[in-house]
């Protein structure tokens, strides 16, 4: 197992994507440990009055050459808001890499379905799939166009389909209404986002008898398996989302 570390990383960029989303770019002084898609880091938030615990955030992208990590973050409360105020020259203390990543399985074409900030782990996953000679197909949902951002990086990896609830971008409706779900010929799917969405995707996968993994966002206190707070009931008993997950095969989950 890769050794976890606590490190102060240098913030080298903070790119605002829209009102709520931003991408933090961080640089480590040392070569990065192996980081796999679906893994996450626990970030210490300073100067946010009400943020006592660390905040779990997935890896959006990893640039091994320059020891660079990118995080896609959505502002939802005081912790993420404070992270949004970081700028070049600041440091960010994090514990990483954490969690059980997405699994690479046999097959050619894979659906990567994400809602909201569930998009975060999908870039690194898409890159890894493509490098392994597979074809990632992205299906992203958002409330409206304002909640979306430039998806060029995804488009370079594969087809990208969009749904928005108000129809201001892509197809109108929920992810689960998108025709690609029926017309696509997937060997498996990966999903991250609101629970109802992941459950719908899981149901579809079960119907088609294909592989399906989801990344859960259980509340976490320690992120390293010590506190037993992030419990997830599974067919193999109670599992911890921070070490046994956050990625689970949907067949395992007692949803």
């Amino acid at each position, binding site marked *: 197992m890769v050794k976890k570390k606590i490190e102060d990383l240098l913030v080298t960029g903070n790119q605002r994507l829209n009102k709520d989303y931003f991408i933090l770019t961080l640089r480590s002084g040392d070569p990065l440990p192996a980081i796999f898609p679906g893994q996450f880091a626990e970030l210490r938030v300073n100067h946010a009055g009400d943020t*006592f615990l660390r905040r779990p955030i997935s890896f959006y992208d990893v640039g091994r050459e320059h020891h660079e990590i990118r995080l896609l973050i959505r502002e939802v409360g005081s912790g993420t808001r404070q992270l949004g105020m970081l700028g070049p020259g600041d440091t960010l203390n994090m514990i990483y890499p954490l969690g059980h990543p997405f699994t690479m399985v046999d097959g050619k074409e894979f659906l990567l379905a994400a809602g909201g900030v569930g998009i975060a782990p999908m870039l690194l996953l898409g890159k890894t799939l493509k490098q392994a000679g597979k074809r990632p197909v992205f299906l992203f949902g958002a409330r409206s166009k304002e909640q979306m951002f430039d998806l060029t990086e995804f488009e370079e990896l594969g087809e990208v389909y969009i749904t928005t609830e108000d129809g201001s971008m892509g197809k109108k409706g929920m992810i689960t209404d998108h025709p690609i779900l029926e017309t696509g010929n997937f060997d498996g799917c990966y999903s991250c986002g609101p629970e109802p969405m992941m459950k719908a995707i899981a149901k579809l996968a079960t119907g088609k008898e294909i592989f399906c993994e989801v990344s859960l966002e259980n509340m976490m206190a320690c992120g390293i398996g*010590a506190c037993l707070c992030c419990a997830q009931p599974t067919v193999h008993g109670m599992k911890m989302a921070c070490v046994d997950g956050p990625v689970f095969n949907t067949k395992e989950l007692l949803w």
Partner: protein
Amino acid sequence: MVDLQVNLGTLSLKNPVTTASGCFGYGSEYTDFMDISRLGAVFTKAVTRENREGNPSPRMTETPSGMLNSVGLQNKGVDYFINSIYPTLQQYNTVFIANVSGSTLDEYVEIAEKINALPGIPAIELNISCPNVKKGGMVFGTNRKSASEVIKAVRKVYRKILIVKLSPNVTSIPVFAKTAEDAGADAISLINTILAMSIDAEKRKPVLATVTGGLSGPAVKPVALRMVWEAYHSVKIPVIGMGGIRSVSDAIEFMLAGATAIQIGTANFVEPAVSINILEGIGKYLERHGFSSVRELIGNLEMPEGFERFRPKTF
């Protein structure tokens, strides 16, 4: 070098810095971040007789300067502890103390008896204060008679150092401290979490699946400090203090209030190596203030002028 060694009855700890039950796994979760052998002791996650799945999720939520948990004693049971966990603990050069929990008096006794047979575990911490289980736990710790009975029963079968962990959810800490001492405890530890609750105003639902949970972290520190101070003045056995400790100063304050050793709980989640920082900081504090032994700190609190020396009436 200053002398950091402290004693819990006949059990000697190389220093007073230990980690709290349920907040440090079985130690192995933290080896990536620190040398856990440097700790005075590690208090393990609660051990029950049988395997327990714990409570449903969500089990955790954040609160101002603290957190609520309702883990509910999830563990694989005492036999698993003995066969699969215990052997792995021997590689570390520190004291492991098992946190023993149960729903019935018999369960406590049976676990204590089994752990008594383990040469590598010199002490148990009897958890009669868990607020997150329906039966047992805090029920024992908030009723004087039940507390006394369960401690006496365990005392009969357990021949090593018996530490009793007290609940803060009581009117009088001195009453329970004294009850533990009289029933045969070698030391007491406090505080366990304070029974509390969070509500999601938008969903109009409790946040935790169990509705209530236990509050821990810096928010509870002033309450914990008061209780440790009261306990120290009520009994002659050593007191182990905890509740919100996250800095060197916090640790010193608990020792000044009367703690012989301190446990670090929730703070481990925020700073995995915080216990080692505190250990090093205590050494520096002692040097700076010209103390030669950490034991000189215990209860070393100057009372304000005109303040009648405190002696709580216990009964």
